[in-house]
């Protein structure tokens, strides 16, 4: 089981999709139910990863799978090369975790030929999981592109009125980047071959070892970085995001925000940065600047939005700015902050999109001015909305804080002191735009008669939200669950990039002089 767990997990949704194709199109309930079951099973399959302690002990790749796939003597070798480490682990978990939620969210939202929708969702899941677990650049690229196709149709078929523009823009914009990356991939391969490095296939672990000359790294980083920057998206390559988000159906937005955007950040951490460490320092100032600009810019633009969904979309730009800033800090706090912030963004923003979906299903509009005073009609909704809002603002005790705090602190301790200071103002703006939106939507008196008859959340909708809320607080209160498994991988990554992961003596409350008595509460386990 364990030796081909990843394959099972990755291709199970695809299998499910094949079955979905044979379910009669008019049997809506069966279609959705079946898809839900498939995604849930996929989640269950992936669970052993989360509970496996090996990640906490060693930073390398685990659950390796290696088969020769394409081998054309003298030309190429591409391998079916899978593996997962502390960095990809939680992203994989996030994916398998968010999918059932996305499916549930479609229950009422998608009437028009749900068959296609479900099939595409499952195909998408395979693509995403594959991209996270593949250790062979070629394989990665295939999954990476594979993700585009279903998302394109999800936006284009089930999207809003401006969907065609959004879908095509999304597809071409992201494809341009990845095509350039393709050339870069090929180049790296041939460089490796010609430099006589012992490589079989496009395995990144071999690529990590070969040290390319600076000028080559420069261009290659540019190609990779550009492609990933589009996906993240980093300012000024972000404009496809608001369109895609606003037009996409709820499930689409959720997945897009929760997972697809992470592909970009993950790409930096897994490929662009460790593959071209020498070129990295050259670009960090630029990239950090863009991240900071993204934070401020995204916040300011989000502040003035009239469409709730667009507001959330722009807030994503800001959030991912924090992620990137943390990652580029090149130290443990920053990395950890960035990584955890990826998860947070998945949870919080995913939840926000679900929330927007809820009110959209009820009112078929997302204009802030249409609402107001909803808290009277929908108290439960109001509470959940409030919690998610504050998690997105980054209130301590919720997940958002842990991520932002560590990312900023990392950036500050790292070389990016002033960037961090500027970025910290984003904390203020976040409060401004989120609370203003919340006030205009939920607070005040019901002015719009259309809102008089609004129903509060149904049991299904609450069930959809609950798991997300659990993680909002879990990550906020005890993030070590995640850090413990992340840290070794990150340390390895940083050392590999030639940066000392800054492990100074890990002090301990017991280490404080005996002048002060220290006691441990009975419940002092798990403390180190």
């Amino acid at each position, binding site marked *: 089981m364990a030796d081909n767990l990843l394959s099972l997990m990755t291709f199970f949704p695809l299998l499910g999709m094949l079955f979905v194709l044979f379910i009669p199109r008019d049997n809506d309930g069966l279609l959705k139910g079946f898809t839900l079951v498939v995604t849930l099973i996929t989640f269950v399959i992936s669970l052993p990863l989360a509970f496996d302690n090996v990640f906490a002990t060693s930073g390398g790749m685990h659950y390796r799978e290696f088969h020769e*796939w*394409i*081998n*054309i*003597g*003298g*030309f*190429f070798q591409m391998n079916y090369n899978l593996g997962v480490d502390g960095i990809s682990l939680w992203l994989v978990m996030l994916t398998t975790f968010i999918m059932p939620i996305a499916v549930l969210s479609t229950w009422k939202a998608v009437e028009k*030929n749900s068959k296609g929708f479900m099939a595409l969702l499952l195909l998408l899941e395979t693509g995403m999981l594959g991209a996270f677990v593949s250790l062979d650049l070629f394989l990665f*690229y*295939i999954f990476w*592109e*594979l993700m*585009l*196709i279903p998302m*394109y*149709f999800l936006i*284009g*078929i089930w999207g809003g009125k401006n*969907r*065609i523009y959004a*879908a*095509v823009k999304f*597809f*071409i914009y992201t*494809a*341009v980047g990845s*095509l*350039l990356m*393709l*050339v870069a991939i*090929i*180049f790296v*391969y*041939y460089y490796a071959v010609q430099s006589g490095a012992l490589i079989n296939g496009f395995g990144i672990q071999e690529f990590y070892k070969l040290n390319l000359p600076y000028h080559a790294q420069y261009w290659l980083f540019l190609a990779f970085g550009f492609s990933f920057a589009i996906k993240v998206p980093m300012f000024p390559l972000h404009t496809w995001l608001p369109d895609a988000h606003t037009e996409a159906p709820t499930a689409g937005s959720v997945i897009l925000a929760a997972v697809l955007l992470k592909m970009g950040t993950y790409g930096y951490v897994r490929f662009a940065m460790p593959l071209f460490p020498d070129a990295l320092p050259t670009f960090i100032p630029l990239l950090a600047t863009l991240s900071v600009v993204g934070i401020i810019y995204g916040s300011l633009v989000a502040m003035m939005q009239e469409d709730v969904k667009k507001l959330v979309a722009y807030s994503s730009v800001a959030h991912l700015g924090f992620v990137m800033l943390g990652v580029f800090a090149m130290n443990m706090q920053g990395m950890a902050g960035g990584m955890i912030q990826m998860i947070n963004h998945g949870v919080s923003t995913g939840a926000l999109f679900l929330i927007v979906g809820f009110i959209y299903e009820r009112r078929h509009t997302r204009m802030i001015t249409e609402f107001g005073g909803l808290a009277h009609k929908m108290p439960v909704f109001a509470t959940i909305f409030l919690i998610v809002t504050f998690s997105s603002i980054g209130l301590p005790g919720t997940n958002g804080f842990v991520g932002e705090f560590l990312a900023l602190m990392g950036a500050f301790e790292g070389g990016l002191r002033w960037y961090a200071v500027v970025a910290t103002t984003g904390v203020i703006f976040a409060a401004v735009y989120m609370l203003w939106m919340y006030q205009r939507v939920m607070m005040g008196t019901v002015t719009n008669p259309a809102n008089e008859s609004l129903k509060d959340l149904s049991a299904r909708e609450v069930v959809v939200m609950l798991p997300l809320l659990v993680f909002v607080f879990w990550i906020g209160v005890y993030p070590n669950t995640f850090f413990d498994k992340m840290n070794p991988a990150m340390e390895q990554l940083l050392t590999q990039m030639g940066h000392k992961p800054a492990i100074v003596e890990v002090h301990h409350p017991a280490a404080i002089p005996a002048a002060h008595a220290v006691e441990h509460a009975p419940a002092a386990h798990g403390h180190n």
Partner: protein
Amino acid sequence: MDANLVQEAIQNVNLSAIMPSLVLSGFGMVLLLVSVFSPRGKTTHVAWLSFIALIVTALVSLGSWNNPQAGFAGSVVLDNFATFFSMTCIIAAGLTILMSDGYLKREGYPVGEYYTLVLFTTAGAMWMASGTDLMTIFLGLEVLSVSLYVLAGFFRDQTRSNEAGLKYFFLGAFSTGFLLYGVALLYGVTGTTKIAGIAEYVQANPATTTNIMFVAGGLLLLTGFLFKVAAAPFHMWTPDVYQGAPTPITAFMSAGPKAAAFAAFIRVTIIGLDSMQADISAVFWILAVLTMTIGNFVALGQKDIKRMLAYSSISHAGYALVGLVAWNEIGLTGIMFYMLVYTFMNMGAFAVLVLIGKKGEENLTIDGVAGMGYKRPVLAIALSIFLFSLMGMPPTAGFAGKFYIFAGAVKAGYIWLAVLGVLNSAVSLYYYLKVMVSMYFKDAEEDFGWVSMNAATAISIVIAIVGVLVMGMVPGPFMEMAKLAGF
């Protein structure tokens, strides 16, 4: 006339070297008679017979895989290279025939000669692929072209078809003139028309490479091929002819003859004009970029899907040229693989068009297929797969093909060429997507009547899909084959 000369000649004649084309031509003639003596409008049996003929030919030519046969004093050779391209052409012809029967009935031209002509074209293509003497190549080229002129203008009373035929004819003949003149000049310099002979001569006295007559001859010769593969600036006939010709023929032209042309092209360039590599690469660099760019950019504005695919085929010729520019093993293997892939994906797309087209095909426009995704889901999915493959989206074969060609370019150090190539395919995304936008994101204006679904065409589509997907997921074996076919 002394005896041993004749003796020698007799020995040199090695019929097994031309056996496949011989078989095919034989079948063609027989079928000609069959179709003459069969009742009017009854052509289905002819179609199936010709299909069988192709299968037989395929078996024959596969028989000589890995045992090269030279014949006619080395002016014809049936090596793996030839076999590979012959197989490509045969597959193309087979798909054509499969999709033709129903089509001809619908368009009201149930004529048996059609099939024989397809067979003769294929025969000519096989000659081109196996010709090692400019003379034989020329013959194959002409057999192919003349039959295609007729096929392009096959719908006698449709002006579009006539026009297509005539344009193809005139420009074809015109380019033949250049090609021949080139051959003549080469002959004048080297005293032979054998490709190998030319190479030997140049090796013997290197001064030739600076000989104006030689260079000019070589380039004139190449222009002839450039015309056949529709590379800019010799591409201009393509859109008109493709649009005007009967759809199956368009499909066939875009795959089979193009492959054959590339076969001869490669053989002549790599072997015969090896000495001119630097110059040729330099000029083809530009031509490749030009071809890709023109093809893709002009395709952006097209309304008619057939014409759009015509332009896309121009751009694909451009991609193939990239492989030739690379001038290394992987590049050339890439071209071969690409031609095979292209046969499947492009003919598959055309097969779908054949099915959804009404009589007269006025509805094969991008708006014409609006809402098809819901009216004809299966066909729509099929077309989407082919289009994704044409875009070069993994995991389809189109991606693998592009990958190898660009890999060749990168390996040879033409990184900017590769970059321009991928940027071009980024542009191409738009017009391929446009079709899918219309199929899935728009609602049908009017219900396009019952698709004249028939088994044969369906089979051809299925074959194409299988080909596209299999070669996409496990390109290994096919690449290996192409590699063996290289020299």
